[in-house]
């Protein structure tokens, strides 16, 4: 094997350490270079990851997999990381001198996600997951003076530890039955017995916590609301996508559907998640909580693809996870701008935004439409893949639940648009987002529209990535 196969992981680890040290070495004003350094380095890593896209190797006796599936998610995480750092913009001034470590923790969380997506073995996967989660514990509580932030950090720590315990318990039960933790070897040792089922369900619960499936979702709104908004954004797109990547790899490869019908179980969970997430989102008045419930519902949609368990469905999972980065990051970037400007995360703070900054309002609207699944945005294409997959797999009822709840979701997504375009505000001064945030918004808009109008290339990438399961 060649170490270049691990260049993305190595580069990320190095970048995280370098940023940490730069923070110590650079004088006060040197902090300003951190953002461009981080973004440029991540862009380099993105290119590196792109170059390795089609590489397929099994390293360390199958403990670590380099394959297009993992690479797809690596690109996704790095893209999300870049957008989070760009869109954080002036919000980071609140972190004062601790902003350097903020970048390091971001990068380490990113490294954890990358490991999760590529782990070929459960313990490696767990280590990646903990690297990511521990970084997030710290990031969540990063606003030291803010009580909500501290409370959120503590809640996340307690519940996260609980879910890790559940996951580890599940892994140990599965190990007890199969005698291995290498994902690829498990299917051969699979035997149907209550312990095994309990193990699978516990592992499922561990992942379900991370992607906030009902009833394991309750942490999400509180933590999303309390955490600094860039962290919330990264939690919503990065952490979730990492859990999806790991979950798809483990469930599709290790647990044969023929002996245990886990798709049915997931289908029920997905349906409950879609219904509950969307219904509670209807009555939210805080943009962060609204996006939290929206992200719970979105997780339900993505799980539909895993339930379908066919080309369309799995392709849909990847496609949707990617477009979700752009659409959701666009929404969060706009929310960040509004919070920086008005100090509020209430939806009322969006009133009259269309006059104060037409560009931000327009991009926010497009992203909201994409999350609701309205053509010609990417969200429509993504949902199309997911629900087509479900219909092909004879989960017609699930597709119906998804469609009806998507319709309902339009209400709360457009509520934000309504506030921006129809709502009135006493303060009519123009809002000028910084250059970095502006760039992030335009990238989000471009991604949301491009994948919607011309889904071919991304669809092909996803097709290549899921070849390992077919």
């Amino acid at each position, binding site marked *: 094997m060649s170490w270049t196969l691990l260049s993305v992981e190595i580069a990320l680890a190095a970048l995280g350490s370098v940023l940490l040290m730069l923070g110590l070495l650079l004088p006060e004003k040197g902090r300003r270079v951190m953002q461009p350094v981080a973004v440029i380095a991540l862009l380099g890593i993105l290119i590196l990851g792109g170059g390795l896209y089609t590489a397929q190797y099994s390293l360390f006796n199958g403990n670590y997999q380099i394959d297009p599936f993992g690479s797809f998610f690596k690109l996704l995480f790095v893209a999300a990381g870049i957008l989070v750092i760009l869109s954080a913009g002036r919000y980071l001034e609140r972190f004062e001198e601790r902003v350097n470590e903020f970048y390091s923790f971001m990068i380490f969380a990113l490294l954890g996600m990358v490991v999760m997506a590529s782990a070929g073995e459960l313990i490696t996967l767990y280590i990646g997951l903990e690297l990511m989660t521990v970084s997030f514990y710290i990031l969540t509580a990063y606003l030291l003076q803010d009580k909500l932030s501290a409370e959120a950090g503590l809640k996340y720590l*307690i*519940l996260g530890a609980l879910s890790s315990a*559940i996951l580890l318990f599940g892994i140990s039960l599965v190990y007890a039955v199969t005698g291995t933790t290498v994902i690829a070897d498990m299917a051969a040792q699979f035997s149907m017995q*209550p312990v095994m089922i309990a193990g699978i*369900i516990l592992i499922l619960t561990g992942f379900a916590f991370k992607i906030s499936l009902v009833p*394991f979702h309750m942490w999400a709104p509180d933590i999303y609301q309390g955490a600094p908004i860039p962290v919330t954004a990264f939690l919503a797109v990065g952490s979730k996508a990492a859990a999806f990547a790991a979950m798809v790899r483990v469930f599709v490869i290790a647990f044969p559907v023929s002996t245990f019908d886990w798709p049915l179980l997931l289908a029920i969970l997905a349906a409950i998640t879609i219904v509950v997430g969307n219904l*509670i989102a*209807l*009555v939210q008045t805080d943009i962060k909580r609204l996006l939290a419930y929206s992200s719970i519902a979105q997780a339900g949609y993505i799980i539909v693809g895993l339930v379908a368990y066919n080309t369309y469905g799995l392709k849909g999972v990847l496609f949707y996870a990617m477009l979700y980065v752009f659409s959701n990051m666009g929404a969060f970037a706009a929310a960040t701008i509004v919070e920086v400007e008005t100090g509020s995360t209430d939806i009322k703070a969006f009133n009259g935004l269309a006059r104060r900054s037409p560009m931000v309002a327009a991009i926010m609207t497009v992203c909201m439409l994409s999350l609701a699944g309205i053509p010609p945005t990417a969200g429509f294409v993504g949902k199309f893949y997911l629900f087509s997959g479900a219909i092909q797999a004879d989960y017609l009822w699930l597709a119906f639940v998804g469609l009806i709840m998507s319709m309902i979701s339009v209400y709360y997504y457009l509520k934000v648009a309504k506030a921006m375009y129809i709502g009135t505000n006493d303060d009519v001064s123009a809002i000028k987002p910084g250059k970095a945030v502006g760039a992030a918004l335009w990238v989000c808009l471009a991604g949301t529209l491009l994948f919607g109008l011309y889904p*071919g290339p991304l669809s092909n990438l996803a097709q290549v990535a899921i070849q390992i399961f077919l």
Partner: protein
Amino acid sequence: MFAWSLELAWLIVLLPFAAFALIGLFLHRWPRLSAYLSILAIGLSFGLSVLVAAHVFLGGMQETFEVSMRWLAMPGLNVDMGLLIDGLTAVMLIVVTSVALLVQIYSWGYMHGDPGFSSYYAYQSVFAGAMLGLVLANNFGQLFVFWELVGLASYLLIGFWFGRHSAKNAAVKAFITNRVGDFGLLLGILFLQIIFGTLNFSGLAAEVAGYTNTAILIVVSILLLAGPIGKSAQFPLHVWLPDAMEGPTPVSALIHAATMVAAGVYLIARAFFIFSATPEVMMLIAVIGGFTALFAATIALVQNDIKRILAYSTLSQLGYMVMAMGIGAMTAGMFHLMTHAFFKSLLFLAAGSVIHAIAGEQDIWKMGRLKDKMPITTWTFVIGALALAGIPPLSGFWSKDEILLGAFAGGYTGLYLLGTLVAFMTAFYMFRLIFVVFFGSGKGVEKAHESPPVMTIPLIILAVMAVIAGFVGSPLMDYAFARFVTYPGAVHYEASTMVIAISSLVAIAGIGLAWAIYQKEWINHLQMRERFSGIYTLLYNKYYIDELYHWLGQRFVYGTAKALFWFDIYVVNGLVNGLAALTGGAGKVLRYTETGQVQTYAAYMLAGVIVIVGLVVLAGFALLI
């Protein structure tokens, strides 16, 4: 020769769209810059189109050039985006880009000082892009997208002066009328996809050739035909075109005379393999076209608005082209489309020059003796009218003659006589207009003046085209046009001296009659109007078709709408509001699960695990038993 230009053909479409995007997003505050950019884009498209056409016509390109990429793929439906270049495309490219370029230059003068100058050029660009995309499309799916886009551009430009009530209404009318036709077209396209599994033109051509179920083919063809009937304003969907004259005159010239309305004719030509597969549909096309030609020409005889006369003339000429398609003279129809584009846009632009000169007046009876004050406008208009009337050797003569020859030699004697009658009427109403507006004995308009060179130079160029464009399809150039725009199994008839002589004679007779009545006033036209007041009123009111549609609309559409409105208010709203209250209420109840207590959250998680494990184990036991 110029083979490389084919590889760049996609730029022909993209450049105007790019101009539209740049103007719309960034440049709309700088009107001059917007106009320069728009003109530059269409100018480059024109340049590329010339190279493409040169390659096709002079380089002796034998095969059609087609590139395609998958735009959308799903089981049972693949939609491509592609380019298809053959003789037909090349002709359309030249016509569209050259007329659009001249019209955009002319508009610089005509629209000068308009507050919406930038938007005007943005719309012009989006129209040009959409129209070029339409003619370059290699499949029905793409064609339909661009078909709708030209409809949108037309809507925006008809209603350009949306402050005027009539312009707003005309835009809506055009849009709705076209919607009727487009609905049929879309159904037809869906049928094609379902039956043949492809929307690609060459793919369909191969499939249709081997298809034997005539009944279905007739249904599909008639559905497809609805599109051209709407877009090319054929009876009974012709009502929108005269009203569309509410738009700025350069728009009427480009969109509602030369290019967009010709898109329907182009579609028939492009999908000729489908229509020509069933003689019944061909007959229907011929009859619709012939009827429209006659019907519109009779209305044009008595109108008083200079643009409306030209509009009905356009209807009539489109009818001519459609009739040509129906009798199998596809080449002649396309030939007439090309020559008509040049001389009719010339006529419209010259009419615009007149309207511009006399402060927006459009009533021909309020004009007169303009030839002294506006010589260039007058003589270019006369050239255009002579071409339209079919006086040899101007372009209209050659193309009209080809159509009449096709009807005569093809054995469609009725249609031949009808065509000749229309030719007579055309000459008459055009020269009625000329004698009243430019010559005549009236006192003339005091303040009239010749338009600036930015407007007159396009007129002169178009006048030259109106004279010479016909030669490419004439025996003088060995019917060059027919070699490139044709279809398998096309028949070419030898020129008949009798047809030529008769059509020229009736045109001269028409001009002579107009001269006698309106110039020399040997016959008092007011007395004529009195004597035939019944027919006059019927024609002047356009056979009351608009009133009929309005009455039908009132009776049936509004009646149904009222009933549905009641249903909507009391039944649907009740249900919807009830459901909304229910979902909202559910949301409110469910949010109480979120207590903020971390112990509660942990309890829910563990309870969730236990319930799931319990259910699965129970289900497992149930299966075992």
